[in-house]
């Protein structure tokens, strides 16, 4: 097995290309069946299984991928714009974090990227749990200005998922749906964090 492939634990049908570990899931755009870009940073990749392991390879490119990767018989290929305001995109299991030490997926020059996801095997154990990976994903990431999501290779499943979301849309939100006390708690924590940081400066 190529060392660049990783077994990634899937959480509720997703794994992540996260920006500094943040998961602003309220800002996810679910209109595509394979990639759910989060408008406030990073993206979730939607898997066939609901829980368990899938196999993932990820590569950072300097230039756009011109050719379709044919190293495997990919069944679905979709690309979408991904923003990374913290400029620290990493492949991650939501539950268990990065499967390997940091990989240089971002550059200093931009916070806007293009993510192309290749998938196969998403119907092998649909909505089930899989302790042995049966799905494979190749993720390519390169710097790019924002552009609409594009399906390069479709499937019945992708169409079903897109139709389901269109029939029952969950549009991205710019703020998390949380009660006022959660917002107030964040303000309190900011004040305490500042007090602790101030103590370091005073040393």
């Amino acid at each position: 097995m190529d060392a660049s492939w990783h077994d990634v634990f899937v959480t509720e049908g997703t794994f992540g290309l996260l920006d500094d570990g943040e998961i602003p899931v309220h800002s996810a755009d679910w209109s595509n069946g394979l990639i759910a870009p989060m408008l406030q940073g990073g993206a979730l990749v939607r898997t066939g299984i609901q829980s368990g392991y899938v196999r993932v390879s990820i590569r950072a490119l300097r230039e756009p991928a011109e050719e379709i990767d044919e190293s495997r018989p990919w069944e679905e290929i979709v690309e979408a714009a991904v923003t990374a305001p913290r400029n620290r995109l990493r492949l991650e299991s939501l539950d268990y974090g990065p499967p390997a030490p940091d990989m240089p997926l971002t550059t200093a020059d931009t916070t806007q990227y293009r993510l192309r996801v290749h998938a196969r095997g998403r119907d092998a154990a649909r909505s089930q749990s899989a302790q042995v990976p049966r799905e494979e994903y190749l993720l390519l990431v390169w710097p790019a200005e924002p552009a609409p999501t594009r399906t390069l290779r479709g499937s019945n499943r992708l169409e079903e998922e897109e139709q389901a979301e269109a029939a029952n849309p969950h549009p991205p939100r710019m703020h998390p749906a949380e009660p006022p006390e959660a917002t107030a708690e964040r303000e309190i924590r900011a004040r305490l964090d500042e007090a602790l940081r101030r103590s370091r400066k005073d040393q």
Partner: protein
Amino acid sequence: MMGSQDSSNEAAVVSELTRLTPETTPGSDKPTSETGTSRLSDVGASCTEPDENGRGSCIEYKAPDTIPALPSGESNPQLAAVAPPQWCEDAQGVVYATRTQACRIDSVYYETYVVRNGTRTTTGEANLLLINYSYGSTSESRIAHQLDVTAFSGWGDALKASYNGNARVGYACTKESGSFSAKPIQPLNQWHTGEAFFDSTATATGAVGECGTGWNLTFTNPGYTSTTYVVPVFRQFRCDNNTAGRPVPGCVVPWYASAVYYSRAAYPDLASHVSRAQASGLPGATFEAPLTRTTDPAVNGDNREKACGDAPSVSGKSCDEYPVASSYQGLSAGGTRRTFDGCQFPGIPAGQGPTGVSVCMITATENSSQGGLHTGLYRSERVLDKDPFRVVVTP
């Protein structure tokens, strides 16, 4: 309480102002008290032996039920410390906390005495309040433990005393700073604050360690021997660099159950299922019956498989189980499945009670969002294996 008491000389106590900070919004924090075994170390009286003149002093922890209403006292404008929150008022003799703050109010009795011809006579008394307020950060390896002290009543020679403080530390922490110079007991109801900072030693990748902090208050009094009150150790914070996806150290109160919020407006299917599941008796909604997280992928997978392994295929929907698979309250702990009308899960009965799980087919993207919401909570609140957490459905 020790020795005799001359109530005619006792100073009156009136108090309205406190050193506490009003909450910014009603219910802005939802502090709760620690349940189960107290982490207070044993406390008791400590008396010095009388000196060559027969004079000595005692210091004693006072039971919480003897604590009066919080006394007045102008806040010290020179304090660099953070004013404790209003809910500290509830922490009389018990620890109240949120995930990043902890508070306990103690009462201390200070007595001076003299022994003449074998007879011990109290020459003065003072009653003091101590507010232990500790705070940390989910993104800092440093915690603070400040001690707010005031004397609210007293008489005689005890009122001539002064006290100074020195912070102390234990467990996986080092003391960075913390002391305050001698402060007079009088005037009464004057608050004095000591501010101490401690650094966790659990900063290496994968490290986890508790921080134990405390203060020693030494009372000095002309003509009497000094005595030291050892403020019971405060062991509320756990620091770690072992939170998946968050490769920086931080500190939290691990027994406090933070909440993940399911908004009905944003996630109607999810909120509907979970609110019905909780109403049927399943845990997770309250501090008294929280869920506890599992980080074991085998438990997670087993929970999922037993709950949803035979889920029907419904276009656009996926199987949601409650309690969530990432908790120890899933079916790996035993129990049976239940479901509700409209859940599209044939062959499963309704059910009641705190064990087992509920299953329901819900919109797949809401189910995926749920995974993100939980992971967001686990990362932001540093929820490690066996930590409690709550699931709260909001409008």
